C-alpha cells in the first residue's frame, strides 16, 4: 500500500524526464534489461556513467584551458562522452555533445566553449533528477516493467 504512492510518484517523475526530453528511448532499453537477476541495473549503469563521464568532462575542461584549442582532441573527448551519454539515453546531454562536436569540426572555439557550458548545465541537471528518481525508486520497491514513453 505504501508503495503505491511512491510508485505513482516514480511514474510521474519518469514521465516527466521523458516528456522534458532529458531521457530518450535508450533509457527504456536499460529498463527493459533490468530483471530479477539485476534489479538495480538501471541505477548501476547510470551511476557508472556519471562516474566515468565526470572524468571526460574534466578532460574537456582542461583541454579548453589550453589555448589554442586542440580541436581534434576536444572532438575525441566529446565523441567518447557522447557515446557514453547516448548509451544511457541522456538526450539533452547528447544533443549538446553533438553541437560541441560540430563546433570542433568547424574550429569554432567560441562555440565550443559556449556549448560546453550549456552541456555542463544539462549534465548537472540530469544528474540531480536521476539521483532523485532512483531514490524514490529504491523506496518504491521493485519497479514494474518499463513502459515506453508515449
Amino acid at each position: 500500500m505504501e508503495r503505491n504512492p511512491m510508485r505513482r510518484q516514480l511514474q510521474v517523475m519518469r514521465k516527466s524526464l521523458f516528456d522534458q526530453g532529458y531521457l530518450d528511448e535508450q533509457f527504456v532499453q536499460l529498463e527493459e534489461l533490468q530483471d530479477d537477476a539485476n534489479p538495480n541495473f538501471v541505477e548501476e549503469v547510470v551511476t557508472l556513467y556519471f562516474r566515468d563521464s565526470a572524468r571526460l568532462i574534466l578532460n574537456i575542461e582542461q583541454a579548453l584551458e589550453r589555448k589554442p584549442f586542440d580541436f581534434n582532441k576536444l572532438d575525441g573527448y566529446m565523441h567518447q562522452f557522447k557515446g557514453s551519454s547516448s548509451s544511457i539515453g541522456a538526450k539533452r546531454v547528447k544533443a549538446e555533445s553533438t553541437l560541441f562536436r560540430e563546433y570542433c569540426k568547424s574550429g569554432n572555439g567560441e562555440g565550443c566553449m559556449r556549448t560546453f557550458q550549456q552541456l555542463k548545465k544539462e549534465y548537472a541537471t540530469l544528474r540531480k533528477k536521476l539521483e532523485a528518481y532512483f531514490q524514490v525508486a529504491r523506496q518504491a520497491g521493485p519497479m514494474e516493467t518499463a513502459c515506453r514513453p508515449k
Partner: protein
Amino acid sequence: MKFSCGRGAMSITSSSAAWKPTDVVADQFPAGLRVLVVDDDPTCLMILEKMLRTCLYEVTKCNRAETALSILRENKNGFDIVISDVHMPDMDGFKLLEHIGLEMDLPVIMMSADDGKHVVMKGVTHGACDYLIKPVRIEALKNIWQHVVRKRKNEWKDFEQSGSVEEGDRQPKQSEDADYSSSANEGNWRGSKKRKDDEEETDERDDTSTLKKPRVVWSVELHQQFVAAVNQLGIDKAVPKKILELMNVPGLTRENVASHLQKYRLYLRRLSGVSQHQSNLNPPFISPQDSTFGPLSSLNGLDLQALAATGQLPTQSFARLQAAGLGRPTAKSSIPMTLVDQRNIFSFENPKLRFGEGQQQQQHMNNKQQINLLNGIPTNMEPRQLASLQHGGQSIGNMNMQVASHGAQNNQNNSLLMQMGQPQSRGQILGDTTVSHSPRRPSSMGQPILSNGMAANVASRNGIPETIGATSYNPVSQATSTLNFPMNHASELPGNSFPLGSTPGISSFSSKGTFQEDVSSEIKGSGGFMPSYVKFNDLSQHKPQNWELQNVGMTFNFPQHSSSLQSNLMQSVLVQQGSSGQMNGHNRSSAVVSRAMFSAGDIKEHGNAQNVNQHLNNLVDNIIRVKSEGVFDTSPGNLFPVHFGQEDLMGALLKQQDSIAPTENEFDFDGYSKDNIPV
C-alpha cells in the same frame, strides 16, 4: 561454451566459458554464442554485456584492445564473434579488427557513436562484418549470430571448392566424407545448417567441380617436395603442372598443387613484403609479372621471413628458404629483415593465418594492381569493391582466417608452418622445432590459412589457372580483398616493419608477429605432442602418398569452439576413417587422428591387427588427403592438436586399439566443439 558441440560432448572448452547445457543442444542456437565485446567505455560495456546476456549469449567483456587480443589468442576457439568499439585509447578499433581477422578470422562487428559514412565504410573495408551505431539496441544484437553462421558457411564452402577435383573413383568415399565433413563443418551450429550441407553435398557430388574432394594434407615432407620443386622451377616459372611433375607424388592433383602454390605465394609475398620494406626488396612486388603471380614471389620472401619470424624456422634456414623462395627478387639470399623483424612479422600465433592471409592479400593485390604492400604504395582496394567483397563473403578471407582461427589454430598451424618453412632442409627441423615448440604453435593457423587461402585463391584468383571449383570462388577472391583490408591497417601492428598503410596483407603480418608469442604459449600447453608428432611424420612417410584421403570436407570444421581446429582435423580424419569410428569421434577428431596416427605407427610396430593398421593407414591417408586448403593443418604436425591434451590423443589411441571395430561415430561432426575426446 561450445554450443555446437557434438553429441553430448563436454567440450573441453577452450574458452573460458563454462560448459553450459545450451552448448550441447544445437537447437538452442544462437543461444550460447560466445561473444567477446571490447569497449573502453565502461558504461557501454556494462550495457552491452547485459544486452548480450539477455540474448542468451555467452559474454566476455574487456575494455582494452590488447586485452581482447590476448584473450582471443589464448582461446583460439573460444569465441564465435567479436564486437568492438572503433575508438579506443590503446588501439584503433580497425586495427584490432585487422588483427582479429588475420589471426583468428572471427567475424567482427564494429560499433561507434560515429555514424559518419566514411567511418562505416572504413569498417566495411577493413573487413568488419557489421557496423552498429551507438547507442546499440538489443534488437541489433539479437541477430549478430547471423554473421557467425555466414562466415562459417562461407568457409566451409570455400573449403569445398578449393578442394581439387578428384577422380571418379574417389567419389564414393568423398561423398561419405562429404557427409561427414558437412556435418563436421556444421558442427557448431548443427541444426539446419547441417542438413543443408548434407543436401548440398549430395547435390555437389554430382558436380565434379564442386565436389568435395579429399583434402590433401600437406605434410612436411610433401611440402618440402613442393618447395623444392618450386625452387627448382623458379618461383616465376613455378606452375602447378610442372610442380606436380617434379614432385611426382602419386595421387596429388594439379589442383592440389595449385591451391597450395597459391597459398605459398601469398605466404612468400607476405614475407617478402615485410622484408621488402626492410630491405627494399621492391622488385618482386612491383613487377607485375603477372598480376596474380607478381606478388607471389615477394610472398616467398615474406613467407620465409614469416616462418623465420615465427621462430619456427631457424633464421638461417629461413634465410635460405627465403633466398630460395624469392625467385624473382634480386635479393634472393638476403633476408632483408632482421631477424627481429622477421619475428615480428611472423610472430603471431597463427602463422598459418598469416600465410593464408598473405595469400589473400596477394591475390587481392593482384587483382587490384600490383601489390605494393611492401612498397607502401597504397593498394587501392576500392572500398566499394571491398564492401561488396566483404559481403560477398568473407569467403576466403574469412575462410582462411577462420581456418586458422578455428581449430587449426594450434596444431594445424604448426604443420602448415612447418610445411612452409621446410622447403629446404629445414623442413625437418622445422617439424621438430614445431614439435618441440608444439606448445608454441598454435600458429598452425597460419598454415591452414595458407592452404585455405591458397586454395581459395587459386580458385578465385585470376592468376592461378587451376580453378578448383573456381566458380564458387569468386567470393574467395573477394574475401581476400576484404581480408586484405584489414591488413592494411595492420601497418601499425607491432613489429610491422613496413609501413604499409595500404598493404593489407603485410601489415597483418606484422601484427601477427606479436601473436606468435601467444601462440607459442598456447602450444606449450599441449606439450606432449612431440613424440606423436614425430611419429606421425614417420608414419606419414610410410604412407607417402596415399592421396586417397577422402575426407576433405572434414577438416574444415572450424569449430571455433575450443580446440576446434584440432577437432576439425580430427574429425575430418575420423571421418575419413569413416566410421571406423576408431577415433572416438568427438570433436577431437584431430586428436583422434593424431592418435590414429600414433596408433597406426604403434600398430605397425607392434604388428597388431591388420585391420588396425589398415584403419590407421586409412586414417593416415585420409589425413594426408586432407586438402591443405581446407584443413588447417594438413600436415601431420597439425594433427596433433595443441589443445588436445596428450591424454586425449592417448585415449583415442587406446580406444582405437582396443576396439578396432567401428565405433559409432561419436563425433557427429556437428559439433566440433566437442573437444573432449574421452581419454
